[in-house]
């Protein structure tokens, strides 16, 4: 995997795993050991997609829900 910020390249597990962006999606946050940038990582592709800055959430809004959860219970 390659850091989008500094270009550091290493196997994905060498990037410090921080936490999931949402448990039901294959996006995680990892940290580059070289420049320490927080990166959004597509875990299926094993690719860093972008640096995640303060207030940024490239995965969207509340996990699983874009807007309100509808009341589907019968």
């Amino acid at each position, binding site marked *: 995997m390659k850091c989008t910020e500094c270009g550091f390249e290493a196997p994905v597990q060498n990037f410090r*795993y921080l936490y999931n962006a949402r448990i039901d999606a294959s996006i995680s946050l990892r940290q580059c050991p070289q420049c320490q940038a927080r990166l959004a990582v597509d875990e299926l592709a094993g690719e860093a997609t972008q640096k995640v800055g303060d*207030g940024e*959430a490239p995965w969207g809004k*509340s996990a699983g829900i874009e807007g*309100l959860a509808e009341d589907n219970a019968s």
Partner: protein
Amino acid sequence: MAAEAAKDLSIQELEKEGQWWWIAEKKRSRRLDYLRKAVWKKGALGGNYAPGIKVDLEMPTLFTNMYNWWKYDPPMLRRAKALAHVLDNIGIFITDQAQLVGYFGSMPNTIAWRLDGASIVNEELYNEPGIMPEPEEESLKKVAELNSYWSGNTAVDKLARVLDPEDAVKFLSGAIGWGAPTSAYGYSGKDYEYIFAGRRGFLDIIEEIDANIEGAEDRTMGMPGPDILPLYERLQNWDAMKLILEAAIRYAGRYARLARTIAENFETDPKRKEELIRLAESCETVPAHAPQTFQQSLQYDHFIQIICRLEAHEGAWPARPDYYHWPMYDKDVNIEKNITGEEAMDLVGEFMIRAYEVGGFGPRWAREGLQGITGTWVWTLGGVNQDGSDACNDLTLAFLKAARLVRVSNPTFGFRWHPKVSDKIMREVFECIRHGLGYPSIRNDPLLIQNSMHWHGHPLEEARTWVHQACMSPCPTTKHGVQPMRMASATANCAKMVEYALHNGYDHVVQMQMGPRTGDARKYTDFEQLFSAWVQQMEWIMNTLVRTVNLGRFKDPEFYGRPFLSATYERAVESGLDAVSPVGERGNCWVTFFTWVENADSLAAVKKLVFDEKKYTMTQLMDALEANWEGCEKMRLDFVNGAPKWGNDDDYVDDLMIRCLREVARHSREMKCPCGNSWPALPENVSGNIHYASIVGALPNGRRLGDALYDGGISPGPGLDKNGPSAVLKSCGKIDHVGDGRAFLLNQRLSPTQMAGEKGYQLWKAYMRTWADLGLDHVQFNMVSDETLRAAQKDPEKYQEVIVRVAGYSAHFVDISRKTQDNIIQRTIQGI
């Protein structure tokens, strides 16, 4: 929005924008505005204290000097003398505009250090960055010297020598529990019935103690026999109680003297002079005598809380202010009209601010588990009187209104809802939630009274006095019901139950054989083998924590001792025993269950995908978990999305949740506390779900080591409750909220847009009816949009006052770590 820009907007415009914090600034009195802004925040920002906060070496030094001097005294008397020395000599201060006084540091920006609790905490303090008073080099020398004195001498050090070494090591691994098994870091209930309902001042109690001493001396100077032998120790305890009550009166007298000094020598404003004289009179009246005014009633309560905190690092603040201060409020505001409603509102708001400013040095696990606050000050409002009638009153309304004006994150409120609560009160409750405070949490009063009677045998009239002992657990405020020492170390990191069941009791994070060897999970051929291992690991975790806490409680009068708390407890004053002694207490224990729901979701995922559908083998699953799901992303997503999750009204997983809880409840009845009562479970989390994120390994619900755990109690996993709010309530309603445990925390996020106006209130009220009909005991709400929270992450300076409900407590959003912030944003916004 910048402060300057906000000032130009009308209240209506700000309401539309949901900028409730600017509205509070515009609406509150000048005094409350000054006092609110004057507070130095003591909660840690994530895990670090804010710039400018200093550890106060004054109390530790004064205490240690006198403790060392009286080295031959018995424990309670020795501590009483050391504490009295602190009360007589610690620096005190009166903030401009203040009408209430009392802090447990020598300056407003200091945090107290409880150095007789645990060497571990003392060593941690030494290593902390940037919190020592200047010059740092000198302070470090002093800390090192104090640490050397207390090394081996603290309450936890003493207990560690008595505990079974295996229990001690496993507890201190940090994997299965937190807290410390000593009242040095405990929580104590206050015997409000004795002090406030009984209208006793400390001089009244001293009279009772004198009579008890006289009675005991008649016997110790009389016929020799074994029956008089325990009295010799009790006599010394009574001496200690008396000594500390007298010191408390002197301590209040010092404030009175300072107030008069300021009024007579410095103050030029006649109105403020008058206030200072009233403040002085207040401190001359209480705690020596029972309060005569509303101001004195609040001041009395605050003195008790502050002195208790000088005696021990109390992590909670059980209180019921609208109930116990109501008689004086009613007298001053309604009957005699001595003060106006607005003047009373200033006092109520300041009473909350005085609690908000309190903070002591906490070790990192406490700071991380309670980010943004310094303890769970959950005050109880509403409820019923001892005869079952509605206890809500004008002061309940005043507290709910004051909360929206001062917007502190601590204390928060837990509201005891019952069917007789008026619409007027419910609207005020809702307004607090709508204003984004995250509190009050709503508690089901009839159900929790029943629960208290079921688990701990409290008589009905006593159960009806209940207050939140910490975040969630009800506890009476009566002679035999009040609990002197709830130790947070009976807090289980429950996700380890399923983790250990899968790993043969071995913990790969702390590198230790923790639980029993229940078998190699790779060889399991049916689900029942896994479940049986889970039951054994659950019992082991609960047993280990409870054994440790029971022994800590039993030995506490010898290893620590609470002279002041004892002097305010009817049963201790009567018996001459330390308040912490189990004698005379009915018993009100519970095991807090952090990270609980992961068990049901993980077990359901294994049952479905491995044993029912046979999509994966146990070996494949264990390989993936050992690799922390690295390289197994598709499979991980299957375990998240292809298996049922709690909170969707799906019996497949809900039945498992109930089955787990019934096993826990069975075991809860088997374990006994030192009073001989049961140890029910109480699922809730504070921000322990974040603290444990890098301590709990990968789980079959699809989380990796590092991911935040669910936000707690019986709340579904963030984003995993996809069937809407009724489904969440229905799942939670399958739990027996009386027999399955002590209480069950439920977090819900609602949309501020949907909850706007009268329509929003009516929607919420309908939701609450369903909640009550389904028999849930708790629910709390976040009502701040994603947009606002992301904006606060981006520009924290502009959003300093945004509050969120974390779990069991509220915090200013900017004071919690990014991981915690993201976890809160991840929670599903329910449309109702």
